[in-house]
Every structure is written in structure tokens, then in C-alpha cells.
């Protein structure tokens, strides 16, 4: 995951490089560090460095990292010729390397040769049964083949070994969500909140899932997690603020048959008004042309 500051920095650097303002190598390093997928840019700028003999030799040993990065980006953009060239260069420099072996298998994936790719990964796994990247590629192959249940099975087994891999938990949650298996997705977010309780996005995602499952108890819980998100983000997360308003409305709807004491116990009118006010303030400052719209929407959510 990437913070807003990191994303802004990356975008600024990207604009600079796009406009021939230099900094291509810094950009490529940042993309690599943040593990962001900007394959077209990486391909374009990485290739221009690799194709220029002076720039290439100026990199020194980093040349090989760049070859790997450009190969992967090229595969993502279906420029398999470029990828093949990079991989050839790496094979020449590092014969018998398992890291290059991974790239070769990835190229098979890019070509849609799923059977061969699967075989390549299996044999690589024999020598390195704990290679996390290879395990994940196998999950990716299942996804690409449109077999989400197989992907889930593989990913669950992976997480039994590597339960601290947060990205894997998130991927699993998203796989479950794509199949509308909300309770299972909720479990994943619970694991993430337990291991990283100060990351607001997990609280937000969990709240969204609880709300989606529905029922008064879940929505009351969702409200707590939206509140936690607001707490952790200093009140700046619009989705969480809107979430509070949605919860207030949903709880009121679901409580219609109940007696007054029960209703009062579950209502949180101050929280609701504060959240609504915070949303309106944000829109007033940043998107005034939408203020009327959001105020109207919030009014329709009032009890």
C-alpha cells in the first residue's frame, strides 16, 4: 500500500520524466520500492536507458535490476519481444539463475502458456519450496484462468505458511469479495486489523464488509469501525464519514419495530451529526459545486 505523499511524489516525478526533465532512474527506483504497477511508463523510460549504451554502462551492476524491471513491465504491456531480449541478457549474465528462471516462467504466463508456466513453477518450487513469489504466481495463474476457488485454496495454503504476509491477506479478501463471500472476507480483514491495528484502511474495509453483510448487529459494529477509521485518520477520510451517516440511516430503518429505549441505545445522533457536518465542511472547502448535492444526499439519510 502506498501513502498519499508517496503517490504524489511518484506522480510529480513521473510528470518530470515524461516532459524530458530527467530523473528517469529515480522514477524507476521509486516504482520498484513502492511496488506500484506502472508498466507502460517503466517500459518506456526503462527501455530508453537500456537502449542507450552510455546510460546503460553508467548504471553499473544496477543494469541487471533494470533488465528485470523492464522485462516484467514489458510482459505486462504484452511487448514480449522486449521482454525476451531483457531475459536473454540476464540469462547470459547469470546462467542457471533461479531468479532468471522465475522470469522465464513469467514469460510463459504472458504468452498464455499456462500449462508450461505451471510446470516451470513446480520445478522451481522443488528446489525452493519457500519461494513466496512463486507461490503467488501460481495463485495468479488460477485467477487468470478464471478459477477463483482454486486461487483461494492456494492462497489459503500459502497463508498457513506465511501468515504475516499482509498483501496476501488483502488479496484473499478481495478474492472472497469478488465471489460475494462476505463473511470470509471479513475474517481476512479481522486478521489484518489484529496484526496491524493502526492501519485505517483495514478498519474501513472491515466496516464496509460488515455493512454489506447487513443486520442491526453488524451495522452497529460497522459504525464502530468507521469511527475507528475517522480516529486513525484525524477525521479526514470521506468514506468513513459517509459510512457513519449510512449506518445511522440503516440502524434507524432496521429499528423501526423496536421500542424507544432500544432505539435510543443504538442510535448515536451526535456521531451522525458530527460526521455529516464534517462531510459538508470538506465539500464546502474542496468541491463547492457538489455541496448542494451532498447536503441533499445527507438529508435523505437523516432519520
Amino acid at each position, binding site marked *: 500500500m502506498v501513502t498519499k505523499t508517496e503517490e504524489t511524489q511518484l506522480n510529480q516525478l513521473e510528470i518530470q520524466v515524461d516532459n524530458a526533465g530527467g530523473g528517469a532512474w529515480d522514477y524507476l527506483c521509486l516504482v520498484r520500492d513502492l511496488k506500484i504497477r506502472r508498466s507502460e511508463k517503466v517500459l518506456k523510460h526503462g527501455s530508453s536507458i537500456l537502449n542507450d549504451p552510455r546510460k546503460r554502462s553508467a548504471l553499473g551492476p544496477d543494469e541487471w535490476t533494470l533488465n528485470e524491471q523492464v522485462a516484467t513491465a514489458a510482459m505486462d504491456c504484452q511487448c514480449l519481444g522486449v521482454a525476451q531480449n531483457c531475459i536473454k541478457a540476464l540469462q547470459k549474465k547469470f546462467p542457471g539463475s533461479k531468479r532468471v528462471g522465475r522470469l522465464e516462467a513469467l514469460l510463459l504466463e504472458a504468452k498464455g502458456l499456462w500449462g508450461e508456466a505451471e510446470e516451470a513453477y513446480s520445478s522451481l518450487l522443488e528446489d525452493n519450496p519457500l519461494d513466496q513469489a512463486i507461490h503467488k504466481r501460481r495463485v495468479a495463474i488460477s485467477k487468470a484462468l478464471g478459477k477463483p476457488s482454486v486461487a483461494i485454496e492456494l492462497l489459503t495454503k500459502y497463508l498457513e505458511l506465511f501468515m504475516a504476509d499482509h498483501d496476501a491477506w488483502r488479496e484473499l479478501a478481495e478474492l472472497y469479495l469478488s465471489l460475494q463471500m462476505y463473511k470470509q472476507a471479513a475474517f481476512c480483514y479481522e486478521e489484518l486489523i489484529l496484526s496491524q491495528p493502526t492501519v485505517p484502511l483495514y478498519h474501513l474495509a472491515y466496516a464496509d464488509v460488515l455493512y454489506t453483510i447487513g443486520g442491526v448487529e453488524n451495522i452497529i459494529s460497522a459504525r464502530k469501525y468507521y469511527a475507528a477509521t475517522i480516529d486513525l485518520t484525524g477525521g479526514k477520510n470521506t468514506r468513513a464519514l459517509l459510512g457513519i451517516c449510512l449506518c445511522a440511516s440503516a440502524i434507524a430503518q432496521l429499528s423501526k419495530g423496536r421500542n424507544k429505549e432500544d432505539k435510543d441505545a443504538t442510535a448515536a445522533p451526535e456521531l451522525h451529526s458530527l460526521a455529516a457536518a464534517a462531510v459538508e465542511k470538506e465539500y464546502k472547502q474542496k468541491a463547492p459545486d457538489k455541496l448542494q*448535492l451532498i447536503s441533499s444526499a445527507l438529508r435523505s439519510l437523516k432519520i
Partner: protein
Amino acid sequence: MGMGSNGELKYEISQNAYIKLVLHSLRHKTAAVNGVLVGRISPKDDGVVEISDSVPLFHSNLALLPPLEISLIMIEEHYVAQGLSIVGYFHANERFDDVELCGVAKNIGDHISRYFPQAPILLLNNKKLEALSKGKERSPVMQLCVKDASKNWRVVGADGGSKLLLKEPSANVILSDYISSEKWKDVTDVDDHLDDVTKDWLNPGLFN
């Protein structure tokens, strides 16, 4: 308000509505995306649904309810002033060769059709989209899906009664141009808006 015979409707989609949705899919090539169709029953012929605009919704976690609920409220609120409402749903699957309507698409389609019974689901057809670049595609690059008598969603074939039509015959030509000029970079959806309210899901100025 009646429908054409046997519920066979014509869905006429305007260039802007059509192109916006396709560009949105192209902006997020590696994800499933969705959007809503905005319009009305044609005042001249109640066998025709005019889709005059569209709003791209999400490119992540399409199955979550809270962002969807907020979007639908805001979108209805905005368009009611123009005498328009949400009249259908658009979905583009994550994978190139996936032509199935997933559960999420059907659920959202069901919800929209509660308010607008003639609501269709339009599913992006990737093979046709690919053919577009070769200048061989005249029909919309979307699959029309409607609810049959037993309330199940089904894809309408070429011989089906209902039809999806491009209002402007040149829509595909314009779309191809936009794809070449990478216009899809400029499309904003509700997901973007919820992350940063300065981003406008109405995409004013997109086609200027």
C-alpha cells in the same frame, strides 16, 4: 406506460454515455469496473429507452454496499433536476475472455430494475473492443442483457427482440480516435471522487 410488443425494447445509447464507459474500462485494464446508465423512456416512443449519459462508478471492490449506496443517492439527486434517472447498469469483467454476468452485476441490476423495470445490464465485449482498433466494428462493443419473464438475466443474442443501438453512427469512429489519443487517462469515477472529492465523477469537459 406500455412497452413494445412482448417487452422488446430498443436501448439507444448516446455517444458520450457509451464512450465514457468504454474509456473507463480502458483506464483500469487490470480490474473489473462498473457504472450506471442515465436516461429516460423516450417521450416520442415508449418502446425506446434513451440512455443519454453514464456515470463510471468503481474500479475496486465492486461488491461493497456503502460506496454503491452513496453513489446511487448522489447520482439520482443530480439527474432528477434534468428529468432523468438511473436506467441501467454497465459492467466490465476483469478477464478478457470472461463473458459471464457475475453475481455482483446481477444484484446491482436487480436493484436498479426495482426502480426502473426496463433497466438493462450492458456488459463490455472485449473481443469487439479489440476488433475496433482494426476498424471492423460497427455495432456497440457491449453485450445487452435483459431480464426475462422469470426474472433471470440473460444475454440478448443478435436475433433477440430487444436491441442496443448507438444513437450516433459515428460513435465507434470517435471512440477509436479517443483510444489512440489515450483519452481514457482523463476519466474520473466515483471511486476517485470518494478518495479525493475534488475529482468530479460527472467528468465535465471530458469531451470538449
